[in-house]
């Protein structure tokens, strides 16, 4: 049409819409929304809460799963951890009243040999014996799990020594009475002075403290591990494996609530380090096969941190999908709210539409006018939601001490979805406004 193109200024957007006209439409939209401030605010609340809840829930979820993953990673993703577990059916056997019965179960030194001999790709094997007992410093007492292990334990389990040192190969061979304390024990046994060079007593034996391990976050180091459930076992003390063998032998006596129990366990824990990360799953399968052949009753448990990590990642994915659907629903509800108000606004402004049409507005000018308003509404709602959604996790981590992580994509995604909602739910009211007959619209009182 020559008439419309008589005055062309600036850049034209698709659909014969100039930038200047769009700018004016935005200004007009802002004014019209500002005119009904309270209404606009209420309309937008649905979007605000939708966006805000998505961002804050994602941030909290991300924080939680990050912590879980960090814990698993601290076990070493190249490691496979075997633990001795008391077989469930052996309980019945011991209750049959044979007094000389000694319960024998768990991982044996023979297993170590077999794994080393038959499975390729296994580099280091880390055996450990765990013994529960009280550890004393004169009158202070801590219920502790003593771990008899080998000198390369810290390197393999990503567990660092913070002060002093770990014991050496030489000390292990000499069956030296030395120990390394877990950080949790230090304030309870040595509240004032450094424990290094001092002695602790376990039953009748004294051990010299030569180092302190770093503190482990959380309650324990594995998800679902048997020891992890036992909260009092958080205190750990490390002593050379050979020393444990010398002091305790292989039969452990325990008195519990009047009953007497004897167990023969060679190794409580065995950590296998696999040379390459790709091999971990295969080696785990091979170890399972070897163990199954030699242990008829399930008296062991195999934890593969890598598998746990994968599982945690999958859980996180599911969590994100669930969150995404909640977000989608809340944004949908918000969108419907906006559409509802826009439809009311179109009806209310029928006369204005008629006037504008009579004075030269094309259908698409009316569409743009109303669509701009809706997109502004949802966009402003989106921005408010993003700000609120960033603030809430900060408050949560400050007040509740939970770790929260705001990923960059979550506010971006939430905001763009809210803007999209504006477009989708704005189209129908806008088209309805544009399709009004100008004659009818002008007659409207």
């Amino acid at each position, binding site marked *: 049409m020559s008439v419309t193109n*008589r005055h062309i200024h600036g850049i034209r957007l698709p659909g014969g819409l100039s930038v200047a*006209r769009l700018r004016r439409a935005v200004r007009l939209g802002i004014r019209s929304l500002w005119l009904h401030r309270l209404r606009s605010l209420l309309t937008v609340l649905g979007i605000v809460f939708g966006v805000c809840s998505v961002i804050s829930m994602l941030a909290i979820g991300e924080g939680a799963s990050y912590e879980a993953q960090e814990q698993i990673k601290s076990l070493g993703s190249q490691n496979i951890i075997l633990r001795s577990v008391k077989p469930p059916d052996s309980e019945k056997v011991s209750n049959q009243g044979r007094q000389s019965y000694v319960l024998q179960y768990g991982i044996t030194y023979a297993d170590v040999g077999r794994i080393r001999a038959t499975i390729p790709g296994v580099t280091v094997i880390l055996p450990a014996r765990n013994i529960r007992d009280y550890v004393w410093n004169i009158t202070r007492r801590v219920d502790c799990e003593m771990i008899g292990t080998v000198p390369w334990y810290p390197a393999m389990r990503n567990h660092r020594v913070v002060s002093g040192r770990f014991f050496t190969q030489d000390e292990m061979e000499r069956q030296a009475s030395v120990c390394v304390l877990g950080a949790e024990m230090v304030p309870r046994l040595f509240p004032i002075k450094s424990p290094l060079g001092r002695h602790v007593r376990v039953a009748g034996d004294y051990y010299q403290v030569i180092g302190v391990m770093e503190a482990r976050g959380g309650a324990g180091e594995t998800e679902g591990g048997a020891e992890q459930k036992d909260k009092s076992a958080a205190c750990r003390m490390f002593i050379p494996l050979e020393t444990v063998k010398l002091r305790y032998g292989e039969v452990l006596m325990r008195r519990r609530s009047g009953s007497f129990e004897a167990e023969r366990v060679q190794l409580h824990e065995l950590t296998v380090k696999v040379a390459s990360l790709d091999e971990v799953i295969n080696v785990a399968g091979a170890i399972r096969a070897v163990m199954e052949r030699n242990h008829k009753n399930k008296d062991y448990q195999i934890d593969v941190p890598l598998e746990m990590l994968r599982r945690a990642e999958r859980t996180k994915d599911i969590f994100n999908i669930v969150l995404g659907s909640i977000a989608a629903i809340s944004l949908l509800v918000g969108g419907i709210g906006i559409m509802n108000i826009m439809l009311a606004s179109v009806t209310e402004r029928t006369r204005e539409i008629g006037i504008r049409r009579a004075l030269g507005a094309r259908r698409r000018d009316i569409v743009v006018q109303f669509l701009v308003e809706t997109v502004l509404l949802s966009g402003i709602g989106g921005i408010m939601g993003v700000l609120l959604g960033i603030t809430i996790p900060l408050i949560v981590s400050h007040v509740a001490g939970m770790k929260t992580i705001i990923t960059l994509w979550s506010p971006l995604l939430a905001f763009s979805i809210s803007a999209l909602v504006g477009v989708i739910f704005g189209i129908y009211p806008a088209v309805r406004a544009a399709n009004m007959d100008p004659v009818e619209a002008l007659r409207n009182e």
Partner: protein
Amino acid sequence: MTLPIVQIRNVHKTFHMGSVKVEALRGVSFEISAGEYISIMGPSGCGKSTLLNLLGCLDRPTVGHYLLGGQDVSGMDDDSLSAIRGSRLGFIFQSYNLIQQLTVLENIEIPLYYQDRPEAECRELASKLAARVGLSHRLGHKPFELSGGQQQRVAIARALVNDPLVILADEPTGNLDSASGVEILEIFDELNAQGKTLILVTHDAAVGKRARRTLRLRDGEIEHDVRH
């Protein structure tokens, strides 16, 4: 002889109200030359409004042709009609039809707004026309702060801002007291004297008489067409 700027040729307009067919216009033909001041009169239901809607390109004839400035607009699509309305026609309504949330100046600018004129130019033109109808001291006011006569003057300024071929006025004095009405009609006389073409729809004989030509409609047909 000036070229006719409005040519209505055998125009019919039929409405379907459910199953009932209403013939609002049945074969109307007339021409209007540039600079004419014409009133369209008749009792209610005679087809005045229908004719005005057709003249204002708000509606299309069922049968027949409408040439505006030599251009046949009877078959044009909606966008082109919008463009014609915005650039070649000026509207003045009985109830002023100003947009309440906009200021006087912004109301006057609306037709230019849809023609993508630069803002500064719009502003300048609009304030010039506001001055012409004696409202330059009210530019920032909202319509509800003005009297009826003032509002109608804003509407006149708006109708003039795009320098239209034809100004269409639908009962422009219908909502006004007689003093304000006379004021408005005086502005019309003045505009006509400056060469503007005016079409005035009214059923008020006193108002109709101010025009130089009267077209009287009855039952969708032209009863008579007199110049005075």
